């Protein structure tokens, strides 16, 4: 019965789009998230996603697509953060204040454009089911581009994520790597928030990659597990969301929490 109704759902194009978009996002968030965890940029990413809220609302006000406004502002903020370096990235107060201001700015934009207020919850909590074929293509192209760039810079990026003080000592182009990575992070955050909303990018960008980092001893197993855990989370959440009609972001966050608890207790048991 359940399987049959699931099969029926996959016949709808909005469901196919949601599935494809979810897959693309899971892969990208898995790859970028692995580096986010290694570089301890969790809170920075969270703040960047909130800056995207102001961008999305502002774009709505100007009649542009929400995702492009969000991407633009997140990108600018990410490059600024890369420029300021650890002074801002590792400064909880600075990040917290910027984060709050972005939400405030977003609320002002929403207020000025009140008939568009329905979009607020879409931006905050994500809405994979309303992904159009056009925006799906945009996501695919952006993700592919990001993953290609990561593939190009993976070696120095990985090393400087693991041993930052040595990367500097060995004369790696640390600044260029930093800007490039933050630009890719902005794209990953924007796309991830299409699925789970700006409030919950942690679910795909931090949670599963953090578990992957914990149970991998090499680069490839880390990246592979990070993508795999993300795919399991999003596919399972899509199925449960379709079956229960509850929001996708609820299911993703629940699955990630349970997965994290399971992984942690397994590790405690083993040691």
């Amino acid at each position, binding site marked *: 019965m359940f399987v049959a109704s699931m099969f029926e759902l996959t016949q709808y194009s909005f469901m196919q789009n949601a599935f494809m978009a979810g897959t693309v996002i899971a892969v990208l968030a898995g790859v970028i998230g692995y580096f986010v965890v290694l570089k301890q940029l969790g809170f920075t990413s969270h703040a960047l996603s909130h800056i995207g809220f102001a961008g999305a609302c502002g774009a709505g006000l100007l009649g542009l697509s929400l995702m492009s406004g969000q991407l633009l502002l997140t990108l600018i903020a990410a490059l600024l953060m890369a420029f300021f370096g650890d002074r801002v990235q590792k400064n909880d107060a600075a990040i917290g204040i910027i984060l709050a201001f972005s939400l405030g700015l977003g609320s002002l934009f929403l207020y000025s454009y009140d008939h568009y207020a329905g979009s607020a919850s879409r931006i905050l909590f994500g809405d994979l089911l309303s992904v159009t074929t056009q925006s799906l293509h945009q996501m695919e192209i952006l993700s592919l581009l990001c993953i290609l760039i990561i593939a190009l810079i993976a070696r120095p990026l990985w090393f400087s994520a693991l041993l930052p003080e040595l990367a500097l*000592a060995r004369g790696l182009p640390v600044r260029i790597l930093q800007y490039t990575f933050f630009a890719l992070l902005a794209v990953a955050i924007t796309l991830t928030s299409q699925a789970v909303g700006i409030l919950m990018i942690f679910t795909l960008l931090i949670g599963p990659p953090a578990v992957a980092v914990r149970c991998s001893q090499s680069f490839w197993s880390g990246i592979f597990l990070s993508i795999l855990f993300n795919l399991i989370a999003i596919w399972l959440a899509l199925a449960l969301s379709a079956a229960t009609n509850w929001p996708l972001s609820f299911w993703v966050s629940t699955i990630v929490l349970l997965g994290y608890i399971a992984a942690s207790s397994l590790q405690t048991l083993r040691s």
Partner: protein
Amino acid sequence: MDKLPIINAQNLSIGYSKKQALIENLTAQIYPGEFIAILGPNGAGKTTLLKTFLGALAPLQGSLKLLNHLPHQDCIGIGYMPQQILRPELLHLTGRTLLGATIQAHQWGLPYLNAEQESEIKLALAKVEATDFADKAFGECSGGQQRRIMLAQALLGQPKILLLDEPLANLDFRHQEKFIEILTRLSRDQSVTILMTTHDINLVANAMTRVIYLAKGKGILGDFAKIFTSEKLSELYQTPMEVVQHQHRFFVVHKETGQIENVCCEHV
């Protein structure tokens, strides 16, 4: 044997800001194969000096040449082992993985080791006797084993100069001895020049060739016997100091307060 200095510092001033130099007017010539201990109280500028040699920090004044190049122009020739390396995200990787990340850091593309790189990693691990635990998670290795992995990391690329920041800190005596034995072999057999900061001169008294002693914004380089005298250290500190020898161990004491300087014992 090469008589040209491998590290040549002339009137070198170092520090993080031009207004406040940590060390002024340091002149030092260090020759290939030397094993030098860098000593001094906390905050004297030991790590800063290493970072300047490394090229991570520009000299404020004076000239500095390593391997006949300005710092940072010949990074391959210098191996560096930082003080603090333990980040929780690293602990699940193996030592071999860390070395693999290091050896290909200068290449583009996806991580993949060729046979030549694999064998260089193997060689570096063998040099520090770390082969047995190279495939264990880094976090499960003992403190001494972790240091040896990081030393192997510094040895990749066959550097002529090794800069080691407190490699002996917080190790038990057995591991300290082992580490010094490995370093001695490196400097003797492969004439690697070693500069190492430490808080206990007594540990390396037999292994090292000379000492750099930093205090009160000044630094002196010389033989252990010449520097570890009450007269010389009183001059450096600009206050009466006394060098005391007890059961083959040296202690540096402030004559007025009786306080022991932490250049002669790990835990003061």
